[in-house]
């Protein structure tokens, strides 16, 4: 076709399916390791996992995390160790959701949920404090009034953590290297980032991934 071949290509496009997702009207399913807003996890006995080490704040490229640790009181400890996160704030006007804080955390205290549709009307709402970040007594993230939630967004908040063996090997080696979570216990591994791995998702998620969610 030479010079005119391009005209055929563009003309045939008229009859092809559109790739556009009309976002606010229809929403695509999110990948299981989606980087949304953070949660601060707790152990199965309700203790907080954060030990106030500030590694997350140190690694954060956007400088959006502020942590101040404090000593646990012997009679009423907040976390199992010596120290706990006394102040924990994330500024979501700065956060780029790179997940480096999740990688840096030695106790798997901070992970990311799939929530990303939130719009705040003022700056103080943009700064999530520990009260807002820490998971509730059911182990699920706490819903803020300005957040838009969809089914399954608040589940599987630590997928990435459970996809990589503690040795850093992307192939999961059948040895659980993470601690239990409040409300879930010790969760099953995600099957890793290897090409041949096919993740088996929990029942609720499998349903969600099968179909587009229509909120219209």
């Amino acid at each position, binding site marked *: 076709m030479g010079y005119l071949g*391009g*005209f055929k*290509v*563009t*003309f045939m*496009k*008229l009859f*092809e*399916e*559109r*790739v*556009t997702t*009309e976002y606010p009207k229809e929403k695509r399913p999110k990948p299981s390791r989606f980087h949304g807003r953070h949660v601060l996890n707790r152990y199965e006995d309700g203790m907080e996992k954060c030990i106030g080490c500030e590694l997350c704040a140190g690694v954060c490229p956007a400088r959006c995390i502020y942590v101040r640790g404090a000593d646990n009181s012997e009679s009423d400890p907040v976390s199992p160790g010596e120290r706990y996160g006394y102040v924990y704030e994330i500024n979501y006007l700065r956060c780029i959701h790179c997940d480096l804080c999740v990688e840096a955390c030695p106790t798997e205290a901070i992970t990311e949920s799939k929530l990303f549709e939130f719009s705040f009307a003022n700056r103080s709402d943009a700064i999530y404090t520990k009260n807002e970040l820490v998971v509730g007594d059911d182990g699920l993230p706490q819903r803020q009034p300005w957040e838009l939630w969809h089914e399954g967004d608040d589940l599987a908040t630590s997928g990435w953590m459970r996809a990589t063996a503690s040795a850093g090997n992307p192939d999961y080696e059948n040895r659980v290297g993470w601690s239990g979570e409040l409300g879930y216990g010790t969760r099953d591994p995600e099957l890793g980032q290897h090409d041949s791995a096919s993740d088996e998702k929990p029942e609720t998620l499998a349903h969600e991934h099968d179909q587009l969610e229509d909120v219209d």
Partner: protein
Amino acid sequence: MTGDPLFIDGVDLVDIGIMAAKVLVAFTFLLVATMFMVWFERKLISDMQNRIGPNVAGPWGLLQTFADGVKFFFKEDLRPENADPLVFRLAPYIAAVTAFLSFAVVPIGGSFGSGSSGTVTIFGRETYLQVADPPIGILLLLAMSSIAVYGVMLAGWASGSKYPLIGSVRASAQAISYEAALGMATVVVVILAGTLSTHGIVAAQAGGITRWFVLSSGVVPFIVFLIAATAELNRPPFDLVEAEQELVGGFHTEYSSIRFALFFLAEFMNVITMSAIMVTLFFGGPAGPILFGMTWFWPTVWFLLKVLAFLFVFVWFRATLPRLRYDQLMHLGWKLLIPLILFWLMFISLKELRAANDWNWIATYGAAFIALAIGTALLLAGLRAGDRAFQDELEEA
């Protein structure tokens, strides 16, 4: 207006009323058509790019342009400090007015051929379905497309800013280069029709598809006209005038609010007008079968369908072809289109002359062939010398 039977037996109030109505209808039609042309282009180009395009304002996004227009009206009208106040304000009107004026001579309906001469009867008066039919119709079109360059040129110059200036310099150079090819392609049609009046040109094409000038002129003038028209309109792939990647917005970079809207309007209006001109010159204007009843109705439908086909082609060009480099643009215009249409023009003139004067077949075409061969050889030699000089220049640099 001289050709119009409306004015043959003096002018009275009814004639003036009909005239005013025609102007009003043409004006409104063009404005509304422009509005939908913008929508059509955006929708079609998104279809060609697997997208959806505007679909929120009105059904299928039909009111998108209207919404944009309303928005433009309420935007602040900025004028750069270095701008020339008068010329800066004048330029958009030159662009818009010339765009309107060219449409006046296009016949948009009326049944031609088989006894009828393309007239319709309104209030008992015979008249053409075109605003005006001056005996120099085609010249008016060429003049308007030349004056429209002033709009672009002055806009760029008066903005007092470098990118608009570069854009407008490109625009004038491009328009001058391609106007030659455009003009000569038009002259081919004029020779075949034997008249400059647009009504006369359409009348000369009456009587079947084979009489349309696209075929009887041998397709080449039409292709040259189409390419040159695309360049005249500054549409992709010849949109160097407003090459966003290089010149921000080109000549209208410094324009905002309703003045920008006027340029935008003029641009899309010119696309419609140019399509209408191509239909008039090469595709028999409103010619087409009258299916049942209403002889005044069907020609207009055919005319609109043909124009729509060309609008589609222009959007198709935009979706398909990447923008030319500036030297490629000049190369195509000067070294390919102009020689080609020049030869074709001479060939057509010769053919007409031979038919008129009953010259000998072999002698005529033999002489033509020899002249053509010499001309081609000279031209090729010239082009090669030019290329060599260019290469030498490159090596020295």
